């Protein structure tokens, strides 16, 4: 996997923001697993291992104007776009305060109109077409907004992937297609999903740029995404970005990945964990130390605790609302 090196020392402030969101995403994610084990959250699907890619990519957009169509792993993306930890946990607990669906959808089926997060479903890859459509509207209305669709590499085998990329390319739409390639679709390894090494290789068949980036490096991800966003905003059309990441957990709380991944593979993968990796990188650059780390962890832990309290205190949806919102 090609690892893009950053030549110039990146902006420390940006790196600190990246790290904050990565740690927040990680600690919040860990909390949802605890809630699951305690029987309080029936289902968890996790972004652990994807944080660098999600945060690095999301920070390259302007949440004030841009539009994202995330998929279920994208906790890091929605946090950057402004969904609060309390809102996130309320989704996990199926509370009426869940901004994504008022407790109707499974957790991590993100959606938040005010935060420019388009509601997503479970059937994979449909969001690729929705992002293409939001970009079509932005272009038609002469707005500068860029849209993004996030998805896994397994999902690129769906027809919707192809139809979306082709359409976006023909119409030169301001949309970025972001593949978080963790090498697995549940249990199925990439080599059984496709006969190519890089999803980005598909881009040329649509006449758009395709870039493969080390998704464990948030700075490299940020830079690749920024370039694609600038290109799209300038009216030069879509890009396909592929971030190679690791899925540190089972597919979901209903999965047991020991049945298809060896202990060695799992151990090797843990050594690639992007969160400590990025921390070491900042330490090497002299922009991070233990005191900062302790301070950050404490702050984030409080945020997560607070989020849990807020969500738990919220009410479950009233059964009488079952019939609401079928039509407008």
């Amino acid at each position, binding site marked *: 996997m090609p690892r893009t090196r950053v030549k110039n020392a990146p902006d420390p402030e940006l790196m600190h923001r990246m790290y904050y969101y990565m740690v927040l995403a990680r600690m919040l994610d860990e909390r949802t697993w605890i809630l699951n084990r305690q029987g309080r959250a029936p289902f968890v699907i996790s972004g652990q291992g994807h944080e660098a890619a999600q945060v690095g990519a999301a920070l390259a957009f302007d949440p004030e104007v841009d539009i994202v169509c995330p998929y279920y792993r994208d906790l890091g993306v929605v946090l950057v776009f402004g969904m609060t930890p309390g809102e996130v946990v309320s989704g996990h607990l199926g509370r009426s305060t869940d901004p994504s669906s008022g407790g*109707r959808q499974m957790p991590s089926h993100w959606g938040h109109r005010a935060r420019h997060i388009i509601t997503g479903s479970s059937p994979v890859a449909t969001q690729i077409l929705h992002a293409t459509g939001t970009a079509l509207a932005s272009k038609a209305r002469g707005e500068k907004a860029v849209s993004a669709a996030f998805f896994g590499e397994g999902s690129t085998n769906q027809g919707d992937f192809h139809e979306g990329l082709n359409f976006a390319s023909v119409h030169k739409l301001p949309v970025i297609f972001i593949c978080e390639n963790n090498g697995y679709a549940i249990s*199925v390894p990439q080599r*059984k999903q496709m006969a190519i090494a890089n999803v980005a290789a598909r881009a040329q068949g649509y006449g758009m740029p395709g870039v493969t980036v080390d998704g464990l490096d948030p700075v490299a991800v940020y830079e690749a995404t920024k370039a694609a966003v600038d290109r799209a905003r300038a009216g030069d059309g879509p890009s396909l970005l592929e971030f190679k990441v690791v899925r540190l957990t089972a597919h979901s709380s209903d999965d047991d990945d020991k049945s298809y991944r060896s202990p060695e593979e799992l151990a090797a993968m843990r050594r690639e964990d992007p969160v400590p990796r990025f921390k070491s990188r900042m330490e090497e650059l002299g922009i991070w130390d233990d005191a900062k780390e302790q301070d950050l962890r404490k702050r984030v832990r409080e945020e997560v605790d607070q989020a849990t309290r807020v969500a738990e205190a919220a009410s479950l949806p009233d059964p009488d609302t079952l019939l609401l919102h079928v039509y407008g």
Partner: protein
Amino acid sequence: MAVMTYLESVRETLRQEMRRDPRIIIYGEDVGVRGGVFRVTEGLQAEFGEERVMDSPLAEAAIVGTAIGAAINGLRPIPEIQFADFIFPAFNQIVEEAARIRYRSNGDFGVPMVVRAPYGGGIHGALYHSQSVEAFFAHVPGLKVVMPATPYDVKGLLASSIEDEDPVIFLEHKGAYRSIRGEVPDERYLIPLGSADVKRQGTDISIISWGMTVNFSLTAAQKLEQEDGVSAEVLDLRTVRPLDVDAILATTKKTGKVLIVYEDNLTGGFGGEVSAIIAEHALFDLDAPIRRLAGPDVPAMPYAPTLEHAFMVTPDKIHDAALNLARF
């Protein structure tokens, strides 16, 4: 004779059929090493090899579309759709192709395949892992739609489906997988498609159902007997296409009161067809209006426990509806 779960019955039937018919192949998402997300195909790849039990790319149209070609060319494919909710990307291949290939070729080609799909809710599956999809397919001549309620029926109906020369949609209720147990004879047997089964004899009222709600209806019938002195007959349709019209009319004539129970949403659900048949052929045998108890008319089942419960057909709801009708 062994006692086993519904899920085990599916697996053991697949195993038994694969041992006797080398034409059978199974494929779908995660069906290989992982044994399927529900573990239905666990151990089958180990026994029959990767050639006969294959993980497929994440692409439902491809799964069903290739199964059509393989069936025409002499195999007996049993494609698995991971959740019935994800069958819609393959709707085109099932409805436009598989269902009409025999008809459009004037009998020259046929598509003997069994598309297995877990359906149904009450398992925290929310809008995309809970759906009952039978009405979409029951509407299509050329397809057969099978929905067993018990481990015994699973075996006989699955074997018949595999032997059938036409495409079969075989719907297995996720809630039944581990909660429903029953005796299953070791030897092979066939249950003809299109033969309903009186699961419980009764005289006061008929409950007509199919799939998992047959089991709920049996629980309700027992309570009606014990607590209310109402004798309820329970007719299990077992297959909604072909449909056992004679059995529907027979139970109607016997009790004169019919409650149709299904989990799918009410309007346009298969219960409407059952109701029309009774109205056309047995109106004057009725002592009360036909009643339907089904899911509400919302697009799909929500996640939060309060909402999910409000959606689901349950033994208690069946009991109350049946009692109401019995006292009409």
